[in-house]
């Protein structure tokens, strides 16, 4: 009886297992294998197995270390700002009695757009130094025009502002759903006891939404580490290497320099980073339960 059951379960899972193997396990394993070879498309196509040499080289590669630094800065600031803005928006929306539906619908727009399209839109209509709205505005109030995406000190903040515009509504809507789940009696009781708004946020809202924030941070954090399309469209990693995040570097190595083996090792490194981040957040989540 028991044996039949396992057989049945196995057969039922079989198609799914094949699917997972073909689309997930095999590519990852093949990627790991590639990262241990010296395969380069520009040479005559010879590929040698070189063990961990690619990974050792990573630590001597200044451009890689730079990309790691850029990724880290982008990750920390974008994530924190997005969550802060999203949280603030969620509370505003919760307090809003009229027109909440329309505003929620409008808030869907930024992250429903294809990232490449919205990034290109920002690049050409907002950040463009000659015709961009931002510079037209600055010019009209008498401030000097800025090179948003080519000034070394402005490029990352500009990208972070775009990313916040695109993704904080997503966080706001997720948190709003959480807020709606909190019984109103809790707030009323707190108010009767004379708690200030800040205290309500600190003692009621944040503790109840903690695991939701962690989930949102999990999704967004991984997305930020993986970010490619937006930065590729907006700056291509420039000026110089100042906005070249790890995945962009991986792309250049693999598909412009055509160093497939070395590129794979960067990809695997980025994969490990994301996995580590997942583990950290999951630990927080489990602790919170």
């Amino acid at each position, binding site marked *: 009886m028991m044996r039949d059951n396992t057989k049945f379960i196995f057969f039922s899972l079989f198609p799914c297992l094949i699917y997972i193997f073909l689309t997930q396990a095999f590519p990852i394993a093949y990627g790991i294998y590639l990262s241990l070879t010296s395969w380069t498309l520009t040479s005559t*196509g010879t590929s040698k197995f070189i063990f961990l040499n690619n990974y050792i080289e990573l630590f001597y590669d200044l451009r890689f270390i730079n990309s790691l630094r850029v990724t880290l800065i982008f990750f920390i600031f974008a994530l924190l700002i997005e969550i802060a803005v999203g949280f603030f928006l969620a509370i505003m929306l919760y307090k809003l009695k009229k027109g909440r539906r329309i505003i929620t619908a409008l808030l869907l727009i930024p992250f429903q757009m294809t990232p490449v399209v919205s990034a290109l839109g920002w690049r050409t209509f907002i950040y463009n130094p*000659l015709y961009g709205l931002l*510079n037209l505005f600055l010019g009209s109030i008498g401030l000097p025009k800025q090179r948003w995406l080519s000034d070394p000190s402005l490029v990352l903040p500009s990208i972070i502002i775009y990313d916040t515009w695109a993704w904080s509504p997503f966080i706001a809507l997720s948190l709003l759903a959480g807020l709606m789940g909190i019984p109103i009696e809790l707030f009323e009781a707190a108010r009767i006891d004379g708690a200030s708004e800040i205290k309500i946020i600190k003692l009621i809202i944040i503790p109840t939404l903690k695991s939701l924030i962690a989930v949102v941070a999990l999704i967004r954090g991984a997305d930020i580490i993986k970010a490619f399309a937006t930065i590729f469209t907006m700056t291509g990693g420039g*000026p110089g290497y100042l906005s070249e995040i790890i995945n962009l570097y991986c792309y250049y190595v693999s598909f412009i320099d055509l160093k497939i083996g070395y590129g794979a090792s960067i990809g695997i490194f980025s994969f490990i980073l994301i996995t580590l981040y997942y583990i950290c957040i999951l630990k927080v989540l489990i602790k919170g339960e």
Partner: protein
Amino acid sequence: MSEPKKVDRRKFIYAGLGAVALIAIGAAAYVAMNPPVVTKTVTTSTTVPTTSVVTTTSVATTTVPTTSVVTSTITTPKSEINWKKYAGTTIKILALKAFLIDYQLELLPDFEKLTGIHVEVEQLPEDQVNQKATIEMAGASSSYDIYSLWGHSIVSYVSTGALEPISSFVKNPEIYDPDYYRLDDIIPAALDLVTFKNEIWGIPIQAVYQQTLYYRKDLFEKYGIDKPPRTFDELKQVAEKLTKRSEDQYGFAGRACRGTQSANVWLYYLYGFGGKIFDDKWEPILNGSEGVESLKFYVELLNKCAPPGVSEFTWTEVQNSFMSGKVAMINEVINWASIFIDPSKSKFANVTGIALPPAGPAGSSVGVYSWVWAINKYSKNKEAAWLWLLWTTAPSQALYWSRKLGVPGRLSILNNPIFKEGVSKWYDGKFLQVLSELPKYAYPNYYPKVIPWLRVMDRIGVAVNEAVSGVKTPQLVLDEAAKDVRKIMEEAGYYR
């Protein structure tokens, strides 16, 4: 009073939303349908788009111009070549999607009639066609018989061993007739581009001079400048004079984006100042004093005289900024000449002038570039593929499409009355004058023949971008670039 008003407002909103929705649906249906019949119901409009989508994609992927009407009066001159030798064979071409290829493909039906060879063409945009060709070559694939390739990196393709040199065909009198084809008629600088290890690895389509000075005659007149600048110093002075930031008017613009194209532009200034990328032993010396001097010059020129954000400029932005009238001078490729005098494309068609590019202290240093037809070594129909190359780039056919392009790849066409007649009126005759004088100013080996040249160029492009956007000083960026270039060369097996 308040009760009916409330209902009215709600009704009004619903009606408004309904109207908006209707307009949206109508607009969507109209856009999707395209054909003039719009007065049908929504259900029919939903079926129409699917067919229209299918037709557009089929047009985009298969680009064999089977239905194009060719009104060429050119006949193939008599020769000893056995055109019918490979009748019935099918050859496949991987080509760039651009006018210079399209004009040649217009002749395909004539070729098919003459030889009985069936030609299939796949056309892709620049970056993709290059990437695809590289991958095909690395895989020693025989899917395509002919590639269209970047002339400046032919060495890297040769190093993969996937190209067949021309010498394997020209020895066979059945498929080559020197009097008919005249290989020595191809502009030497362009032929030099594809010559490596005493072999010719492809046929250059044009000789595209990378630098030509385009300027606005009306602005020159307005600010009292009587002639176009002839030297770098004059270029800077004139550009400064023409820059009026408060009026959004700039003297000069050039490419400075990250990537190979800004390196391509800076090379002109580097050579103009007497610098070089490599010494005799392939050691990078681009960070020598001439190199730093030339980059300083280019950075200053752009930062003082170019529109803000110039460090993001690709060729598109350079072209647009000139055509929109914001920029008074550009030093750019010669094949834009036909665009700038076309009144349907440029507002300033009547007042755009052309001149020889300004020369540096070490003399003129114009780059010559071309797209190149090359034959796949692993192809199974090499000789049939060669026949297409031979036929389309021979003087008689080249005249046909060179006339449309304005920039030929053969000396005889430069002097051909039919060609001259077509372009003689361009820029009041100045175009033909510049075009015929430019070969004298060509810089030999503008693109050093090293295997990883594309990577080297890409790295130099980053340095130019860094310097122009002010990340680091010219000296520092070039020092770093030289170090990386050395590493790239080492990886490719130099210095052993």
